[in-house]
């Protein structure tokens, strides 16, 4: 049958050339779309290192935010400066007390299982602080997260080695918890074997008291090595410039209490959390944070571009296969009639059309595959330049899996679209078809 089919494809090469060109182009573009989706799915399947189910950010605002920005110390006389400085110290310590009081009150809410306070540390946070550290003679950059001990409970980040923070770490300042990248290895350093780290200028030494599981900022990104510092009560970053943006109260809600939590917490706690100048602004589920992060990081737009281009290609493949085979049946009516008169069953006619389509697709896919791996680098460069989301991997394993998936998707679509013309073909009455001859 295959030999016969190749013969048919060859005799109709003029029409087949068009359908082949279309399939090759569609295959090549769909290839890049599949690459993106496949890569994203692989990333998504990796453990992200934290759990955000039943977690919320309690957004506390400061009505006097930026108070210190307005004061111009440089133009003050010395005496005025001293008074201003003393006043500022009083305000700072009042604010600091208020924040920790608010933290205590949040903890006491009956629906809250764990609550933590942190600076630029939560998953999907737009803000980021980083620093360079030394391990022996190797330096590496890591994200810095200042957290209270409960942080690991709220986001269920496992400690793989050593221990979590406890209150004693407040006094001994240089105790840290670290985490690396994939398998806790980063730049060939196994984070599980690190005991001490040096700061960038090598003036302070940190004791590693625990190693946490690696975390990502978003599922689709790579693991970021992190250094967790103990958030002490006297930390002035909590009230400094722009702090409401970095200051994160997070809670893990008891699963049974997680119904309308945001709304009921807002109602219950509004007056309790009102400690001048702070107030409760909103309760944000972590999944909202995630979609915000996806938006800002252009992930949402990337996916939408890929989806719409794929949908466009798929519809075009459907139209192409359907239309071409519809016309083909008409020009081959007598041929089909003759085959049926000679005893071919309806089913075999349908299978014949199906195999012919798949064979064409296979030919196209081989050409497209060779095209793709040869122009992969150039094309992905161009596509990146014009801001299309492209991964542009050049590993052999990725080529093969891409090919299989793209072929599989296109085969299903082509098979479905040839079904209607094939059915029409098998409905031809042999007598009528032969009479036309």
């Amino acid at each position, binding site marked *: 049958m295959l030999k016969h089919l190749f013969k048919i494809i060859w005799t109709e090469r003029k029409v087949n050339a*068009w359908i082949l060109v*279309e399939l090759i182009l569609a295959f090549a573009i769909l290839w890049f779309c599949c690459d993106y989706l496949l890569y994203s799915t692989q990333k998504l399947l990796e453990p992200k290192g934290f759990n955000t189910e039943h977690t919320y950010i309690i957004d506390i605002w400061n009505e006097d935010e930026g108070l210190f920005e*307005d004061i111009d110390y440089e133009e003050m006389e010395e005496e005025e400066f001293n008074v201003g400085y003393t006043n500022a110290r009083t305000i700072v310590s009042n604010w600091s007390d208020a924040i920790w009081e608010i933290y205590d009150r949040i903890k006491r809410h009956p629906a809250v299982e764990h609550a933590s306070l942190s600076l630029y540390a939560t998953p999907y946070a737009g803000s980021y602080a980083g620093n360079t550290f030394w391990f022996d003679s190797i330096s590496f950059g890591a994200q810095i997260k200042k957290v209270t001990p409960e942080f690991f409970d709220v986001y269920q980040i496992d400690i793989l080695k050593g221990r979590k923070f406890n209150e004693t770490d407040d006094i001994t300042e240089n105790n840290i918890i670290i985490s690396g990248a994939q398998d806790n290895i980063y730049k060939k350093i196994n984070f599980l074997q690190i005991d001490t780290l040096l700061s960038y200028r090598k003036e302070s030494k940190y004791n590693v008291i625990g190693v946490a599981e690696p975390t990502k900022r978003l599922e689709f990104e790579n693991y970021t090595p992190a250094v967790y510092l103990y958030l002490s009560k006297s930390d002035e970053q909590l009230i400094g410039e722009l702090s409401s943006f970095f200051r994160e109260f997070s809670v893990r809600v008891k699963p049974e209490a997680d119904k309308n939590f945001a709304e009921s917490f807002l109602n219950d706690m509004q007056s309790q959390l009102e400690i001048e100048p702070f107030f409760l602004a909103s309760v944000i589920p972590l999944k909202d944070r995630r979609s915000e992060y996806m938006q800002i990081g252009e992930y949402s737009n990337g996916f939408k571009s890929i989806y719409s281009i794929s949908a466009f290609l798929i519809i075009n493949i459907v*139209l192409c296969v359907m239309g071409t085979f519809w016309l083909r049946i008409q020009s081959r009516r007598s041929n089909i009639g003759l085959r049926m008169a000679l005893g071919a069953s309806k089913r075999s006619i349908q299978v014949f059309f199906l195999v012919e389509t798949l064979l064409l697709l296979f030919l196209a896919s081989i050409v497209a595959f060779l095209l793709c791996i040869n122009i992969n680098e150039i094309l992905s460069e161009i596509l990146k330049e014009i801001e299309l989301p492209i991964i542009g991997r050049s590993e052999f394993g990725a080529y093969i899996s891409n090919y299989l998936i793209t072929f599989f998707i296109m085969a299903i679509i082509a098979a479905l679209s040839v079904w209607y013309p094939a059915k029409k073909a098998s409905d031809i009455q042999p007598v009528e078809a032969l009479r036309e001859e």
Partner: protein
Amino acid sequence: MLKQNKFVSAISIIGTALAIMMVMVIIVTDQIKTNNIAPEINRNNSFYLKYHIEKSKEEENSYSSGCVTYNVYKNYLSDVKSYDMATLFTPVWSDEKYIIHVNESKIRRFEPVRLCDADYWKVMSFDFVEGRPFNQIEFNDGLNNAVLSERLAKELFGKESALDKTVYIFKQLYKVIGVVKDVSQTFEFAYSEVWAPYTTVPNFEEEGYHAIYVIDDKDKRSLFYEEMRDVERKYNANEDWNLTLQGPYNHRLQMGASYSNVKPEFVLIILKYVFIIAILLVIPAINLSSFSISAVKKRTEEIGIRKAFGARNKSILLQVLYENLFTAIIGGFIGLILSYFTVIWLKEWLFNVTTGDSIPLVAFVSPAVFLYVFLVCVLLNLISSIVPAYKASKMNIVLSLNQK
């Protein structure tokens, strides 16, 4: 003619409609972003200064980039004279909200606030439901006057008129002097819920601003650019930093300047459009070509007879092109209608807006849009029918008549 092969005709029309829809979504989105549409009615004559970079004269890699500072505006940009209108205002970021409440009530709202000068109301054209904008004298005196959007005014004061009511913004009491029709978030420079004079904020000299210069006269523009470069030179002579103004850019270029330290590349913007439209038109065109080749094949005898009676190759070529153009235009019309729905459906993605606000309808129903649809149809038709039409015109009469 379309009835001859209904199924294939339908497929061709759907294919055309789909292609036109995708292209029109891109064109209409682009129109909404770049045409003069109220309130941003001066886009075509506007020059934008959003960001600048300051590089340290001493340390090589030390620089800071950000919005236009008040210092640069007040002491240096004031030398620029070649323009018709100019305005200075703060950008509205989606994550930056201010606390607003009525009188002493503790129910707080978080709304974007735009601080601007009095000329802002001349550069933009807002539709005032009631009241008026603040004028130059009120601006100079730093009177606490504010303009609200219709939505916010309704939320704060219900059915009562908002005029002359008071409202707390940044813990200061403001008087409402005007209410404007809601502005869509697609307008980067016009959108806000609250507008107030920047002179009313205590630390306005520390704020970051954007500036727009409107220049109607084309000849003035080169002089304007010259003056901008003079601003940089003067700044570099007086200050510890070297200033590079990011712009002024025209409307299309400033859309690419979404980060303070990135210079937009015009070529890349164009390349992107060309590439996308190529994908969107070439693939359906191949499709349509193969269908019309089959159609031409079937009509070999008709073409043969026409030729036998003296029709020229050119007229055969045009006949096939015309006939296919008819299909293309039907598809184009359907595609245009579909594109309306798609734009409304996907507006959050296309315009990066967050809430469900309205899209100005003007952008859809304009002569320019119809012209674009027609041009895209002709283009698609040319790509898809040129091969079949050429083949038809080159057919051998004897052979084609012989087929009967």
